[in-house]
């Protein structure tokens, strides 16, 4: 089985600042990390690899310093890595990014499974998986919280708001993974040096079969017009009595007063 895991390098801190001029995330002075959901996608790939001896190829699109995240994925257990880097890719929205990633996956060839995190923690769109699967014309399963390999495909569980889905998916398939799927391991310190024995390949725009009008800013139909941080909302605070019974009674009263709790008539 051949697995491609798409990862994104995101700012380390959750205290992200917005650049008012560019309306984009201000990455200056903030070091990057692998998007946390992508760590779960990688771990899912490693679990499948342990059972089936699958080949795991990790891929990202971004500037040269994203190579740190690819090398980290190699130290975690990926077999090889591909960096998609070109000035022409700059300013890409999700559509243009998904187009380049899907062309790179086509170039790798014979890919059975594409894994991504459910979303990135910086842009939070959750669109990349569906976009890539459409371009590749393969099935997709989003928000997978459990993955098992079975004959000819995967058995996947999705825990949605009010339902639990148990899905069988034939290969090839694209799956986006939630943070409930597994418990990602830390990089082993000694494995870092050994990971440099594996290969990171860089593909530029000219290495792929791309339509120039569909990449970078030119190929991006969406434009961020404004972006702002949510305002801090101060909620009502109540001091409940120390006695648990009194506290419960008081809480029920408050909830009824606010019509949050309604008596069944």
């Amino acid at each position, binding site marked *: 089985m051949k697995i491609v895991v798409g990862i994104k390098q995101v700012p*380390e801190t959750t205290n992200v600042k917005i650049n008012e001029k560019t309306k984009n995330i201000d990455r200056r002075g903030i*070091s990057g990390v692998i998007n946390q959901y992508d760590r779960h996608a990688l771990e899912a790939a490693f679990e499948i690899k342990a059972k089936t001896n699958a080949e795991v190829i990790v891929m990202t699109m971004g500037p040269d310093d994203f190579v*740190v995240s690819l090398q980290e994925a190699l130290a975690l257990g990926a077999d090889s890595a591909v960096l998609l880097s070109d000035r022409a890719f700059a300013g890409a929205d999700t559509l243009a990014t998904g187009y380049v990633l899907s062309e790179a996956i086509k170039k790798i060839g014979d890919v059975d499974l594409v894994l991504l995190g459910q979303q990135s923690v910086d842009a939070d769109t959750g669109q990349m998986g569906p976009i890539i699967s459409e371009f590749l014309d393969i099935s997709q399963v989003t928000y997978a919280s459990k993955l098992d390999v079975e004959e000819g495909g995967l058995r996947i569980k999705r825990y949605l708001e009010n339902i639990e889905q148990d899905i069988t998916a034939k290969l090839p398939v694209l799956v986006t993974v939630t943070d409930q799927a597994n418990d990602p391991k830390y*990089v*082993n*310190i000694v494995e870092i040096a050994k990971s440099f024995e594996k290969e990171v390949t860089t593909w530029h725009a000219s290495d792929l079969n791309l339509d120039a009008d569909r990449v970078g800013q030119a190929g991006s139909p969406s434009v961020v017009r404004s972006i702002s941080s949510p305002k801090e909302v101060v909620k009502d605070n109540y001091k409940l009595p120390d006695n648990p019974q009194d506290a419960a009674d008081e809480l029920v009263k408050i909830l009824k007063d606010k019509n949050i709790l309604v008596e069944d008539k």
Partner: protein
Amino acid sequence: MDQKTISQDILLRMVKAFVKNEVAPYDMEIDHTRSYVNNLWSKVKENDFLSLMLPEEYGGAGFNGRTSAKVINEIAKGNASLAVTLEGHFKSVDQIVKYGNDELKNEYLPQAKNRIIAFSMTEPSGGSNPMGINSHAEKRGDKWIINGDKIMITNGGLAEIYCVLVKTAPDELSFFVVDNEMEGFEYGKQENFLGLTGVPVGEIVMNNIEVDESHLLGKVGMGKEIGDSAHDDARVLMGAVLTGIMEHELDLVTDYATHRKAIDTPIIQMQGIQRKIADIAISKETTKLLYQKAAWMKDHGQDYEEEAAMAKAYGSRSAVKAGDDSLQILGGYGYSLDYPIEHLIRDARAMEIAEGTVEKMRTAIALKEAESRA
């Protein structure tokens, strides 16, 4: 980006995540229970923290002094005890790498991945004055017979391998390597120290331990040189620990002062509070620059004795003062055992004594200044 930079970035990402998830949430519990709770020690070993500085030829990760010190700094932000436990191991590994013969290196360095190595000089009769020790080794045929009592060993009890300072003649000091599986090796009393309570500090007793010549570290009579070398290594790493403690103090006190209001104003807007917080930040940054300079000099083969002494002497006093100022800003919360400030002061205070007192550091600094002008 070169391999060294990428490796360091990956390592520091991993360490930050490890500290955030596995260390920092248990800081108070480690202090109160005097143990590495939540299987922390197993996790440290599983992820090969003990191999950080160990050369690759012995199965280690081979990171240099500066990177290792940054790792110690990050860990100390979460819990200073764990950082000091690793510091004790790293400085000991370093001395075997530097002074061990091939037989000794091949025997013990691959084991350093899983077994803690400790460095022991102090005895009831002498600490800062090494000639005051009574432990001794006597040559019988092609063997050395070691007897003596070593106390206040960092990681004493947890460590399984010990570099021990002994007299090989009335005025001659030498180091040997012994381990807990040797006949005549016994663990003794564990200390009940005020701070850094997660670090086991204990005694070993050596009764006619018989070792081969290969267990001699360096040559006979090199005890003082090896001891000084270990101290220099330890002091650089202690600068990193102290920086981590001050970063922890700064996080706590800044967060508190930003949210705590007096007369409807966050107290961080008040000049008296601002001065204290600014001084903590200045001390933290100065200690960081001092330890990083010393580590850089070490990696480049330069004499770093004076810079290492400065990092420890300045950093330890500053971290205690920063803790005291933080306690004052937090008021009653600062004085409470339920908040971490008080244990950060106790932790920092240990480093005004351990690995050479601050008084001894000043002597070393002054003599180096005189030497450079002679």
